[in-house]
C-alpha cells in the first residue's frame, strides 16, 4: 500500500511547498515520538495536566429508561473539556522538541483552539488560531478562553466562514511560516502524516475504555461502541483498539443538519462521494464538478464537508457503520443526558448519545459504550437560542 493511505483513502495532496514541513514531521514521528524522553514527558502530561485516565461512567437512569446498558467514556472530564487536548499536548511536545516556537491551529467549535492554547501556554510557545467568523460568534466563550491563555485569534472571513475555510487559511499561513511554526492539525484528517499522528495521540481513548469496560464487566466487551464523527478524531481514538474485536459493532454518527431532504448537512460518509480536499483523498460533500459544498450542523465541531481518510476506509470495508442524527435529535439528547444523568454533553457528543436514544428498540438489552468527547458548557448560547 502507498505511504499514508488507508485503503483507497488518504495520501498527500498538498502543494510542493508544504512537502518539506510534512516530511520533517514524518521524520520526527520516527525519531522523536518513540524516544524515551518524549514518551516519559507525554505520559506524565496526560496524567498530571489532562487528568488521565478519564473515567467511564455507567448511566443508571438512562439505562433503565432505554432498556439497555449505557456507558460513557468521559473525555468531557479532561482538562479544557474535550478529547482535543490528547492531541494538542502530543503535537505541541513534538513541535517543541523539533525546535518550533509557534503552534498554529484551525478551530471550528473552538475546542481544538482552546486545547492548542493550553498546550502552547504550558510549553511556553506562541499560539495562533484561525477560526471562521461565523464560529467566532456562535462559540464566543471559547474565543475568550483562548485569548486569556495568550492565543492570537485570526477571524476567517472567506467562503462559508467555518472550519473548512479556517483550514484553508491556516494552510496558507503554514506555507509562509513553516520554519518556525508547527501546524497543530485538530483532527485525524488532512495530508499524511496527520491522520496517523492524530490517531496515535487519540488512541488512548479506546486503550483506556476497553480495559475499563472489561474490568467492570467480567472481561466482557461492549456490544456497541459509538462516537460522533466530524473530522473524526474522537471516533478514531474510540474505535482504534476495538477494531480487531469483531464482536464489537462500531458506529460513527454524522450530523444530518436540520434533517429535511436536501438540507445542508455534515455527513460525507453517509451521502458524500470520493474526492480530494485539504491534502487527502476521502469522502466529501461536493458538486458533480468537484466544488466543495457548504456543510451545516448545530454542532460547530461537526460542521465540516470532509472526514478523516481512515473513517472513509472503515466505511468502505464495512468494519464500522456510519449513521446520521439531525440537529433536533441531538438537542433532545443534550437535554435528556443533562436531566437524567446530570451530565451536560457537547452538542457534538450529543449526536453520539442520540444514537442510543433513537435506536433503543434495536439496542434493547445490549451494552452500549458511547464516547462523550466533550462537555456542553460552550454550547449554552446555541441551546438557549433554540429552546
Amino acid at each position, binding site marked *: 500500500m502507498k*505511504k499514508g493511505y488507508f485503503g483507497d483513502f488518504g*495520501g*498527500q*495532496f*498538498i*502543494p*510542493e*511547498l508544504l*512537502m*518539506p514541513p510534512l516530511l520533517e514531521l514524518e521524520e520526527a514521528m520516527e525519531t522523536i515520538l518513540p524516544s524515551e524522553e518524549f514518551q516519559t514527558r507525554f505520559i506524565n502530561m496526560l496524567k498530571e495536566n489532562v487528568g488521565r485516565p478519564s473515567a467511564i461512567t455507567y448511566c443508571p437512569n438512562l439505562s433503565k429508561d432505554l432498556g439497555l446498558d449505557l456507558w460513557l467514556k468521559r473525555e468531557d472530564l479532561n482538562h479544557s473539556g474535550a478529547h482535543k487536548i490528547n492531541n494538542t499536548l502530543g503535537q505541541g511536545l513534538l513541535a517543541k522538541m523539533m525546535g518550533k516556537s509557534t503552534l498554529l491551529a484551525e478551530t471550528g467549535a473552538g475546542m481544538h483552539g482552546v486545547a492548542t492554547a493550553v498546550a502552547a501556554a504550558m510549553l511556553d510557545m506562541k499560539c495562533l488560531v484561525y477560526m471562521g467568523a461565523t464560529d467566532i460568534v456562535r462559540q464566543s466563550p471559547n474565543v475568550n478562553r483562548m485569548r486569556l491563555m495568550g492565543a492570537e485569534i485570526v477571524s476567517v472571513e*472567506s*467562503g462559508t466562514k467555518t472550519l*473548512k*475555510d479556517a483550514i*484553508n487559511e491556516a*494552510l*496558507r499561513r503554514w*506555507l*509562509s511560516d*513553516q520554519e518556525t511554526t508547527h501546524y497543530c492539525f485538530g483532527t485525524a484528517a488532512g495530508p499524511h502524516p496527520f491522520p496517523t499522528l492524530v490517531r496515535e495521540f487519540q488512541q488512548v481513548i479506546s486503550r483506556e475504555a476497553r480495559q475499563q469496560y472489561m474490568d467492570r464487566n467480567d472481561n466482557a466487551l461492549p456490544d456497541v461502541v459509538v462516537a460522533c464523527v466530524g473530522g473524526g478524531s474522537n471516533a478514531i481514538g474510540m474505535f482504534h483498539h476495538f477494531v480487531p474485536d469483531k464482536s464489537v459493532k462500531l458506529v460513527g454518527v454524522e450530523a444530518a443538519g436540520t434533517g429535511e431532504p436536501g438540507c445542508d448537512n455534515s455527513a460525507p460518509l453517509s451521502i458524500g462521494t470520493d*474526492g*480530494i*480536499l*485539504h*491534502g487527502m483523498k476521502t469522502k*466529501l460533500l*461536493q458538486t*458533480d*464538478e*468537484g*466544488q*466543495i459544498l457548504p456543510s451545516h450542523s448545530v454542532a460547530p465541531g461537526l460542521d465540516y464537508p470532509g472526514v478523516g481518510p481512515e473513517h472513509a476506509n472503515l466505511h468502505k470495508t464495512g468494519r464500522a457503520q456510519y449513521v446520521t442524527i439531525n440537529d433536533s435529535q441531538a438537542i433532545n439528547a443534550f437535554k435528556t443526558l443533562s436531566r437524567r444523568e446530570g451530565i451536560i454533553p457537547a452538542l457534538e457528543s450529543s449526536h453520539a448519545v442520540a444514537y442510543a436514544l433513537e435506536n433503543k428498540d434495536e439496542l434493547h438489552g445490549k451494552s452500549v459504550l458511547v464516547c462523550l468527547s466533550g462537555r456542553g458548557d460552550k454550547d449554552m448560547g446555541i441551546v438557549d437560542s433554540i429552546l
Partner: protein
Amino acid sequence: MNPMQIQIEKATRQGKVGLIPFLPAGFPNREQFWKELEELDAAGAAVIEIGMPFSDPVADGPVVEKASLKCLDDGINLTWIFDGLKERKGQFNAALLLMGYLNPVYQYGVKSFASNCEKAGVSGLIIADLPHEESDFLKTALAPHGVSLVPLVGLNTSKERMKLYAKGASGFCYFVSVLGTTGQREALPARIKEKLTAAREIFDIPIALGFGIKHPDQLTPFKGLMDAAVFGSALITHIENGKSSAEFMKPWK
C-alpha cells in the same frame, strides 16, 4: 517538443523573457475573458495560463481567490473552458496552460480531461495541490495526449526533490519565488538566486519565475537564471481597475 517550451525558447532567442500571463477562466466576465486572451496573445505572451475555478484554492492569495470564486459563482466550469477553447483552436500563437486544483479534474475524469485538453489545444497543466508523490496517475493520463504536467518547485525544495521533478519533465519548470500564496509583492526574497541556480543545473527545460511578480524590474537580478515570468494578481488588479491587458503587457515587451 512541448509547445510551451518552443514558445519560451523563441522569446529567449529574441533576447526576451517569456511572458506567462495568468487569468482565471471567465474573468472579468464570460465575453470579456476571450477578448483579454486575444489581447494577451497579440501582445506577445509565450504561454497563457488559464485558471480553472475551485472553491478552496489553498495556494492562492486573496486577489486570485476572489476573482476565481466570482467566476465560479458565474457558473464557469471545465466544460465552458474546453468549449470556448475548442471554438478558438489554432487562433493563439501562445501555448495554452490550464492551472487549478486536483478535485475538479478528478471529478471530470482524468482520461476525459486529458483528451479534451488535446482537442482544445492545451499543452500544459499545473495542479497546485499535487506533489511528486501523488502525480503518477495524472502524468500517465496526460502523456498520450501531449499534455505536460508542469512541475512547481520553490525556495524550500531540496536538490533531491528537484531531481524527482526534473525526471521526465517537459514544457517548463515553474519556480515559486516566495514561501506563501500567489500575490504581488514589492520585494522578492534574496535567496531566490541560490535556489534558481540549483534549479538551472537540475532542469534541462526552461524555468519560469512566478508568485509575487508585478513589474519587470523585479527580474533584473535573476537574468540568465530564468527564462520566463508568470504574473497573475497584478494583471487581475490591473483589469479590475478598468485597464486593458495590452497596456499591462507594454513594459514587459
